[in-house]
């Protein structure tokens, strides 16, 4: 496919990797923020193409992994209510909450539907006027505009049987939390390209300057990732720290202003809890006043006490403090078929990526 195949070319990847080897004189730790990038790194063996002195630290950018257990439990409790249809992205289905996963509910007769686009939830609401349709709206800034548009359409069409359980999180506050930690081991960040396609990267200049840390906007294909790493290493070797765009064909500095306008209309910034990490100030979206009528938390006021699995060290993995294989449960008590924590469930979770790909050697030109 055009605009994919060129960036999976093994020869180009090898050449960029060679250039990284030539430029690297010291040890550096680079964090890729996005779980999609972690998946690509493991899938294509990028970590094995670059010098051993460069360590890739996997960041918290897996929305399924950081959705709080309370929110998963709430989705669970809502789906158990009479006449409810819960619509969710597929990744969320098998994530363990205190009372099991959403896929477990399906086997007990609850109506939980996997959607590809949030507009399908609007259609389900139109088709089922006597049912209550709840969209489980998770994701980073990449996904938020799609969910916002579904909510806006529901308001325009007066879809009274449509509501949303919002658990959106934002990347820059997470980067700031990591960079500002005195124990921070990260020398440079690869910023998530598709998040920046929406938001642009103006907000990152302050972070690069304040924490003296290079931030390189990076894509998801092997060549894109290697180019992001190459630019980060060049900055580090030269003692520089600024925002650079290694994904220019897709990301403009200002992002997508139309999408930003709708985000501003539908959502407002709020503090959010990140599973395994804790509450990060101003790190998420909640519905704005004008759209509060669509809040599923208000429509379904339910209460319970969530319980986390104590053996799961997902929080340490998500903060880049622990490699997945360093967890005692990895591959033993915790596998993709029987996960203890969310990072072993999602394709973008670091644990699942290590479990699936860690035996592989560098692997370019893999089929999509």
């Amino acid at each position, binding site marked *: 496919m055009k605009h994919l195949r060129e960036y999976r070319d093994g020869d180009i990847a090898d050449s960029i990797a060679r250039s990284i080897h030539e430029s690297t004189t010291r040890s550096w730790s680079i964090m890729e923020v996005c779980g999609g990038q972690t998946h690509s790194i493991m899938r294509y063996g990028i970590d094995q193409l670059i010098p051993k002195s460069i360590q890739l630290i996997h960041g918290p950018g897996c929305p399924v992994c950081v959705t709080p257990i309370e929110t998963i439990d709430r989705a669970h409790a809502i789906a158990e209510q009479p006449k409810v249809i819960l619509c969710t992205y597929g990744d969320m289905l098998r994530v363990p909450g205190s009372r099991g996963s959403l896929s477990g509910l399906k086997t007990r007769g609850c109506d939980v539907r996997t959607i590809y686009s949030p507009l399908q939830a609007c259609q389900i609401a139109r088709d089922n006027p006597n049912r209550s349709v709840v969209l489980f709206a998770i994701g980073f800034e990449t996904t938020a505009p799609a969910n916002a548009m579904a909510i806006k359409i529901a308001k325009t069409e007066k879809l009274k049987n449509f509501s949303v359980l919002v658990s959106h999180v934002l990347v820059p506050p997470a980067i700031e939390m990591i960079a500002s930690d005195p124990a921070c081991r990260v020398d440079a960040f690869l910023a998530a390209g598709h998040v920046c396609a929406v938001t642009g990267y103006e907000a990152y200049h302050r972070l690069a300057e304040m924490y003296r840390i290079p931030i390189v906007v990076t894509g998801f294909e092997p060549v894109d990732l290697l180019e992001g790493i190459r630019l980060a290493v060049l900055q580090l070797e030269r003692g520089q720290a600024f925002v650079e765009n290694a994904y220019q064909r897709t990301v*403009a500095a200002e992002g997508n202003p139309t999408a930003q306008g709708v985000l501003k209309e539908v959502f407002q910034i709020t503090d959010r809890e990140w599973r395994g990490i804790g509450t990060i100030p101003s790190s998420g979206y909640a519905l704005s006043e004008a759209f509060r009528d669509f809040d599923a938390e208000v429509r379904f006021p339910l209460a319970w006490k969530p319980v986390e699995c104590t053996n799961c060290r997902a929080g340490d993995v998500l903060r880049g403090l622990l490699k997945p294989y360093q967890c005692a449960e990895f591959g033993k008590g915790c596998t993709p078929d029987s996960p203890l924590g969310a990072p072993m469930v999602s394709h973008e979770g670091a644990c699942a990526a290590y479990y699936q790909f860690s035996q592989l050697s560098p692997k370019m030109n893999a089929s999509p």
Partner: protein
Amino acid sequence: MCLAVPGKIVSIDPSRGFLMGLADFGGVVAEVCLEYLPDIQLGEYAIVHVGFAISRIDEGIALRTLAHFRELGILKADVAEQIPSVEGY
């Protein structure tokens, strides 16, 4: 979750109250919402995420990036020549 793929816009439908269209993903055609790229033209490529086109792919920049690799000497000439004509799998 942030998985997004490039698709070629092959039809635009303004008749639904919100701007929809069809995108071709290497032979698989799917419906996409174009509300966030209201001025996209037929034949242009966009990055599509959960059924929404969120960013136009700038073909000029894509070619310049590949040319840049060539200048750096990190793209072999024979590979470089093939790239602009790559279409589909």
